[in-house]
């Protein structure tokens, strides 16, 4: 029956039927299930955010099985650490999770400080908090930009990188480096913030809430974002806890577990901030939780800057921290301490410590074993990316491969942290 009023082309189109092709295809399947197709997703694929290889079993477009194959970026950092004195470990260990370098340094320095039993001055703790939270914003911005890119939004990446540049400028001001700054030291921080840093930081924190609002205006109600993220990759809270998942992924299910609140370190209990949580734990919740965390981090930075105590920025214990440069010309003891610290490093009493902190991706724990010498006998990083990656399989099973891309983006694994 031809419908009146349609063109010749549409009439031809209506006459096409796929029945013979479908019949042909069903001949090669086993009847109930279509043939499974095993494909390698990665290790070199832009959507895997690094060299992650996923072995995916596909039935049509549906993921039936998945196993991550990792180790392509294994650089043996934990082994390298055993050959370096404690203060030389910091730049090496910063390169594990390369988007959260302040956190790596903080976890390691925290563990060593607890082993040595050194007190960190309040100013150093506040300066650490400022930089940790800046780093958290920076990490979330990079996550947001690249994840949106995976979903097909190009422009948001440039907006996110624009703000990230300002944070890197701030890092450059305070430490001289934009990435892998080596700012956090055992006993405090490397240097006090320079003149002009506070003003620049204030400008940044004043602007950031508007920026987050703008990202939200682009993405929150965007139809493509909603369709790709809502109700995809749902895993319930208990499964995630069993898999050891922490951080924004766990908070998206409504569990407000955050080490900054639960077991405060580095004066986090001085600040007033909220823990954003989601409701059902789908990809959209993960996105909204991280976006809200940027705002909370901005609040913490403002409070830390307001209440920044006076005093030393690193411990005055000369056995741990280098003496001030000007003392070297006048004090023999300072020269001796400087020489001993630079050549041998400081010795750490024997013992074992596991020191966990809240990184942008969850619980980042550093295990340090000391045998009494100036080099650690074992350094292990419990990296949240490595543990969280195990949750990818339950998240994407029996979903579409397009959802796999979105879920992987919202999982936010950093391969440098996965492989170490």
């Amino acid at each position, binding site marked *: 029956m031809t419908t009146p009023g349609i063109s010749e082309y549409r009439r031809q189109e209506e006459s096409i039927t796929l029945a013979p092709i479908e019949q042909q295809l069903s001949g090669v399947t086993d009847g109930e299930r279509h043939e499974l197709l095993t494909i390698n997703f990665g290790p070199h694929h832009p959507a895997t955010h690094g060299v992650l290889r996923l072995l995916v079993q596909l039935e049509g477009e549906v993921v039936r099985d998945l196993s991550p194959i*990792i*180790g392509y970026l*294994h650089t*043996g950092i*934990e*082994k*390298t650490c*055993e*050959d370096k004195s404690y203060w030389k470990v910091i730049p090496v260990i910063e390169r594990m999770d390369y988007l959260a370098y302040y956190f790596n340094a903080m976890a390691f320095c925290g563990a060593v400080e*607890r*082993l040595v*039993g050194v007190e960190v001055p309040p100013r150093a703790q506040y300066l650490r908090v400022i930089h940790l939270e800046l780093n958290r914003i920076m990490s979330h911005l990079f996550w947001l930009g690249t994840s949106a890119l995976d979903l097909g939004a190009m422009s948001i990446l440039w907006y996110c990188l624009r703000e990230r540049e300002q944070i890197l400028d701030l890092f450059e001001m305070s430490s001289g480096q934009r990435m892998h700054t080596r700012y956090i030291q055992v006993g405090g921080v490397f240097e006090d913030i320079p003149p002009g840093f506070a003003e620049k930081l204030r400008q940044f924190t004043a602007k950031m809430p508007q920026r987050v609002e703008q990202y939200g205006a682009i993405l929150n109600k965007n139809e493509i974002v909603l369709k790709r993220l809502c109700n995809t990759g749902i895993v319930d809270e208990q499964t995630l*806890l*069993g*898999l*050891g*998942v922490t951080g924004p992924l766990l908070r998206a299910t409504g569990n407000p*577990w955050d080490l900054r609140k*639960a*077991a405060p370190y580095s004066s986090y209990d001085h600040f007033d901030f909220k823990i954003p949580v989601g409701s059902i734990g789908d990809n959209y919740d993960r996105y909204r939780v991280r976006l809200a965390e940027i705002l909370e981090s901005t609040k913490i930075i403002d409070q830390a800057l307001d209440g920044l105590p006076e005093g030393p920025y690193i411990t005055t214990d000369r056995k741990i921290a280098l003496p001030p440069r000007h003392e070297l010309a006048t004090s023999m003891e300072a020269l001796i301490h400087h020489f001993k610290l630079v050549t041998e490093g400081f010795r750490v009493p024997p*013992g*074992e*410590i*596991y020191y*966990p902190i809240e990184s942008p991706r969850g*619980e980042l*724990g550093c*295990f340090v*074993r000391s045998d009494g010498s100036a080099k650690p*006998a*074992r350094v*292990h990083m*419990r990296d949240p990316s*490595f*543990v969280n*990656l*195990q949750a990818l399989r339950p998240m994407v099973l029996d979903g579409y491969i397009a959802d796999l891309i979105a879920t992987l983006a919202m999982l936010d694994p950093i391969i440098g942290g996965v*492989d*170490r």
Partner: protein
Amino acid sequence: MPDATGLELIAQDLREADAESVLETIYFRDHGTLLVDADGAREVLARLRERGFSFLASLHGVDYYPEEPRLGVLYELLDMQRVDRLTVKARVHSEAPSIASVVDLFPTADHQEREVYDLFGVVFEGHPDLRRILMPEDYEGHPQRRDFPIGGEPVLFTYNEHTVPRYYE
């Protein structure tokens, strides 16, 4: 954190269930550690899991070279309700090191046990898929052991590739 008394109470309860299970309690820098018998480690972890330490934060290996039993497997447990942390440590001998897997109790142990197997050579009995995870599948040795040399790997360049056996594979 359980204080020193709390740690002793936990150890006492575990010893009541199995006298041989807890070998030693260590309280260091406000943190409790239970040194347990490697054969009974799984039982201890199951009991602690019932007590509320239901979150396995981390599982990692340590090499205590040259002491014997040489290798250590450490379980960092977390009680999220009471915000308590507790370390359970089991020591295994370096000849045929093996310990029972806890993947069925804590699914998060899957990759972490594979990592300890890969880097230290501890075999986890009952692990569903015990393969190397970070090192290549055909790698020989367990690089995180203390007697494994740093820099023992020859670097391949075009001028010396023929000196490395099976470089073309």
